[in-house]
């Protein structure tokens, strides 16, 4: 291996290796923006198509009926939420791959794997927990559960990417706790937490790091 002649180059190389090995910086703000749009679209679908413009008040309605009678409604809502999740993940991967390619970096690196593991463990815990809530008919706690565990997942993943992700996580947790206090307007908290916060975050990150 050749020696490095210039101290400035050497320092630059060291700083780059430190950054590349500890933080995944190919995460694109655009994926946040799209996740927000998908979440709002999902909420509109739930409100107008599944819950019949709110004439089916999901909380009281679900409680007044046995689980069997509302199972189709439940499956539709689960399907809607899963579609939002999958579209968001797909756009996150797509925009990150594009950003990595532009910067000549790899997407699949030791630090991106660490990021993923630290993100997915709280997220999967939340997903399973919310399924249990659903099976036990605690419908009013589903939106708070989703927001809180998603926030914890972001908080945890924030150590391996932009520091702003940590603060987005905090805001999601606060939104989740607030939604637990006002269970009857869970869908509005969903729109705020998964929709508006993501759009603001995505716009801010894109402006700050990518334009």
């Amino acid at each position, binding site marked *: 291996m050749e020696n490095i002649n210039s101290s400035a180059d050497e320092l630059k190389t*060291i700083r780059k290796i*430190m950054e*590349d090995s500890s933080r995944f910086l190919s995460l694109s703000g655009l994926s946040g923006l799209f996740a927000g749009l998908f979440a709002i679209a999902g909420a509109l679908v739930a409100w107008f198509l599944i819950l019949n413009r709110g004439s089916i008040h999901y909380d009281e309605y679900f409680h007044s009926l046995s689980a069997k009678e509302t199972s189709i409604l439940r499956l539709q809502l689960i399907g809607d939420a899963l579609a939002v999740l999958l579209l968001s993940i797909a756009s996150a991967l797509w925009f990150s791959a594009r950003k990595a390619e532009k910067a000549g970096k790899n997407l699949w690196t030791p630090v991106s794997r660490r990021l993923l593991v630290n993100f997915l463990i709280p997220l999967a815990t939340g997903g399973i927990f919310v399924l249990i809530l659903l099976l036990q008919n605690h419908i009013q706690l589903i939106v708070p559960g989703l927001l809180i565990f998603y926030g914890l997942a972001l908080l945890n993943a924030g150590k391996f990417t932009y520091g702003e992700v940590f603060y987005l996580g905090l805001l999601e947790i606060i939104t989740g706790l607030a939604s637990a206090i006002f269970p009857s307007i869970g869908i509005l908290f969903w729109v705020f937490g998964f929709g508006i916060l993501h759009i603001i975050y995505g716009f801010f990150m894109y402006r700050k790091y990518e334009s």
Partner: protein
Amino acid sequence: MKDLISGLNKIFESRVRLGIMSVLMVNDTYDFNSFKETLDVTDGNLASHLKALEEKKMIRVNKQFIGRKPNTSYSVTDDGRQLFSQHLKNLEDLIRAQ
């Protein structure tokens, strides 16, 4: 000027060793294959530099088994951290002196 240059540590003079130390300054542990990916070096080259840093007590080797597969990870020693920080400081001083 001369003092600064002689202060630069010979241990860290190759690109691979610098890379290994840089990674370990910001990661608690790092395994062999991850080093290979991050630094883009061959097995033999990486192994010899890791060995050299280990012998100079700059890094520590932790051998574990994940299932049946051996997994070797590395972390920086206190001495290594101190010396490398000093090395960085020297580099910065050198740039400032120019």
